[in-house]
């Protein structure tokens, strides 16, 4: 094994660790945060569309009902999130990694 091979192998390990550290420390939490923020927005979109799912009558649910067939996965996930959500604080707290 030549010197250059050993250097290459060493660099590969460093690169892998670097990428892992970067992903774990910086990019992954960031993705997660952005995705959760998107979920939050989606929740507020869904709530604006279907407040009557929570007993709040809506004069426009007639129109939003047309969207339901295309919102299958969102609808289920949304209902689950809404029922499970303890408080806004808790949800927001999850988005920060201390």
């Amino acid at each position, binding site marked *: 094994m030549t010197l250059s091979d050993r250097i290459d192998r060493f660099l590969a390990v460093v690169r892998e660790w670097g990428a892992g550290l970067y992903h774990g420390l910086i990019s992954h939490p960031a*993705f997660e945060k952005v995705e959760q923020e*998107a979920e939050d927005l989606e929740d507020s979109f869904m709530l604006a569309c279907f407040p009557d799912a929570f007993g709040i009558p809506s004069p426009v649910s007639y129109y939003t009902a047309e969207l339901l067939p295309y919102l299958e996965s969102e609808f289920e996930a949304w209902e689950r999130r809404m029922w499970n959500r303890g408080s806004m604080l808790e949800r927001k707290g999850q988005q920060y990694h201390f």
Partner: protein
Amino acid sequence: MATHTRPTEKFVFFGGKGGVGKTTMSAAYAVKCADAGLDTLVVSTDPAHSTSDVFDQRFGDDPEAVDGREGLWAMEIDPDEEVEHHLMETKRALGDQVSAAMVNEIDRQIEMAHQTPGAYEAALFDRFVDVMQSSEAFDRVVFDTSPTGGTLRLLGLPDFLEGWIDRLLRKREKSIDLFEKAAIGRNEPRRVAEGDPILARLQERKEFFEYAGRMLREHAAFFLVVNPDELSVRETRRAADGLADRGLSVRGLAVNRLTPEPDDDENGRGARYLRDRVATERAHLRTLREEFDQPVVAEIETRVEEVRGDFLSEVAAELDIDTAVAADPPSRS
């Protein structure tokens, strides 16, 4: 010479308190337009339809020619049918799109949405915009609306809905944008804007509302039918203000049910009653003339007979509303 509608105003609405004679007035005006050589459609949006009674003929949800009258068609909108239709349509899409496991859950939600108090109004609104969109065959469309409150709410819808759908669109766009950002350098984002059916639907709805708003503001004229009594005058004032607030132009007031004056030599109890009645009505008529921005375009006396058939033409002759139409009608889009 009467010039109370602008030629570009293809859609003419008659509104007012319940029982003042909106149907009579709109039918008479439609007859007048038809007699002037315009292809005219009368549309009743009042759930308690009476167009059928005026023309002595049954009408359905599609324009039907009025017997014995050249260039006149009529239809009666049935919101219940529209709600049902909308429900079926949505359910069909549901069957195509959604897995069996979720159908029940979503189905319940859809059923619920069609029972809400707003559903009926939304359906009525959809239908009358639909009538506007598919009215190319007619030179003039006359709407016989439901009593004031309902109509004002109905006509206020486009403004309200446009704003609302704008907010929804922005929310959806933003959440999709974030999902796309979260996926950079990784795998597929959870949602993409390209081909998103929700965005497409919302956009379609938005255009629909914008069309309705534009037509109502630019191509519609409103007339309020009023009786010469206190309640009717007050309600007319509220209606005129309400419409003006929404940027809709009230062109004039059609006074209906004026009491005929007895001859001077009559002095019986009936004649005295009529004379008193006429005096109070004069006062109300003066209020209408002087305190309203809109001109009084018709003063129709009470008739002993029901206004039907030939009487329609008589009433039509007394309507001081012109019938001119623009050479090129408002376009669909």
